[in-house]
């Protein structure tokens, strides 16, 4: 059972209006090839859940130029001034979520948990409209699970079953996102034979992964470099 598909095939799995969970922190652990393909496919009205919208013209940042996004949910958008500007113009809805709450909401989405009570953000503007409950004298707010129609994650290696390992802090949101999408597509640098990844080192078990797409970016000097387009 080989899960490898061509990047163009993601067209079958992603629809206009979908909610996408997209891995990455800054540009690290970002599925660049899949994002490029999204831009090419011209998908519209997408809600993207990701810590940030890449950087200006990089990663998810390119989807701000293709009018693909309806809404972004994440913790930090100010590092991409295009995001700020699209939001100011009314072209982009933003839901700002504390980083730990974002990670936990996605984990709950994958874990069959509908919501959880956290201290984070209680008493702040970001808690407005959220249910409160007191536990042991402290105020907690109810945060709800986030699920995606499709998750786009970036891993270092997969085996042919779809087990994944990540590259250092490129791990970030990818493992929780891999549990919380109805369809999960992993972009990887390398696919190895089953058995080459050890049972203890596998971070994302293959049950979470539906498809694998090869990363077309080459890592030079520690940075992923845009491939020379062949298409």
């Amino acid at each position, binding site marked *: 059972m080989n899960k490898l598909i061509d990047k163009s095939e993601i067209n079958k799995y992603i629809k206009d209006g979908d909610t996408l969970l997209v891995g990455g922190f800054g*540009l690290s652990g970002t599925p660049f090839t899949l994002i490029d393909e999204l831009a090419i496919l011209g998908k519209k009205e997408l809600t993207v859940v990701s810590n940030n919208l890449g950087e200006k013209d990089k990663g998810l940042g390119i989807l701000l130029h293709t009018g693909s996004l309806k809404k972004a949910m994440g913790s930090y958008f100010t590092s991409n001034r295009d995001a700020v500007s699209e939001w100011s113009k009314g072209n982009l809805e933003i839901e700002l979520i504390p980083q730990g709450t974002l990670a936990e909401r996605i984990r709950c989405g994958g874990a069959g948990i509908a919501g959880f009570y956290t201290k*984070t953000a209680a008493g702040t503007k970001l808690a407005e409209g959220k249910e409160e409950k007191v536990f042991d004298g402290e105020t907690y707010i109810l945060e709800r699970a986030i699920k995606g129609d499709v998750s786009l994650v970036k891993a270092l290696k997969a085996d042919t079953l779809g087990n994944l390992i990540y590259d250092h802090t*490129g791990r970030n949101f990818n493992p929780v996102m891999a549990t919380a999408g109805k369809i999960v597509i992993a972009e990887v640098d390398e696919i190895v034979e089953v058995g080459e990844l050890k049972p203890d080192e596998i971070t994302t078990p293959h049950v979470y992964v539906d498809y694998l797409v090869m990363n077309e970016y080459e890592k030079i000097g520690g940075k992923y470099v845009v491939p020379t387009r062949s298409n």
Partner: protein
Amino acid sequence: MSQQDRIKIAKRISKELPDGASINLGVGIPTLIPDYLGDKKVDLHSENGLLGMGPTPDEENINMDLISASKKPITMDKGACLFDSADSFVMIRGGHIDVAVMGALQIDQYGEIANWAIPGKDILGVGGAMDLVAGAKRIIIASMHQAKDGSPKFVEKLTFPTSGNGRADLLVTEHAVFKFTENGAELVEQLSDLSLEELKDITGAKFTY
């Protein structure tokens, strides 16, 4: 905001960090702290999934998938460990980070912190600030004493949006160190040649001494 003042604050805070502690350092002044730890070995936590952050690598050892929460290339200390974002915030929110050192836009005399949003400006970034305020065992604020316009940042009551119900334990500015107890702020130490009266003049908060 002279570099000398920033270093003074970083140096003073480094004295507060116990050997072996797990520390989260925010952006700005806190990032200067590692240079002033001397022989102390602390474990630096990075929100994006690392405990045991080491110094900046040489150019040839950069891996942009090994970065700090400020998105700068880093290395790993011996004994470092990697984890995902959910587990990283288990560590923060669950009270397993000994000290968080962070900047503030304002702080009030009871230690309430405002460090993510300015009234009237776009609110589009929060990062891990609120999780740290809610969860770190001890919070130290590193801040210049006054805003750029000369107004006090250490105030009686916040006018900027709060970062949560957590409270700072210590405030270190270029002029003074304040500690927070149930009774409010207490001046612990002066770090400049300002007289007590002069210090009071540039401070909005009430404090004991």
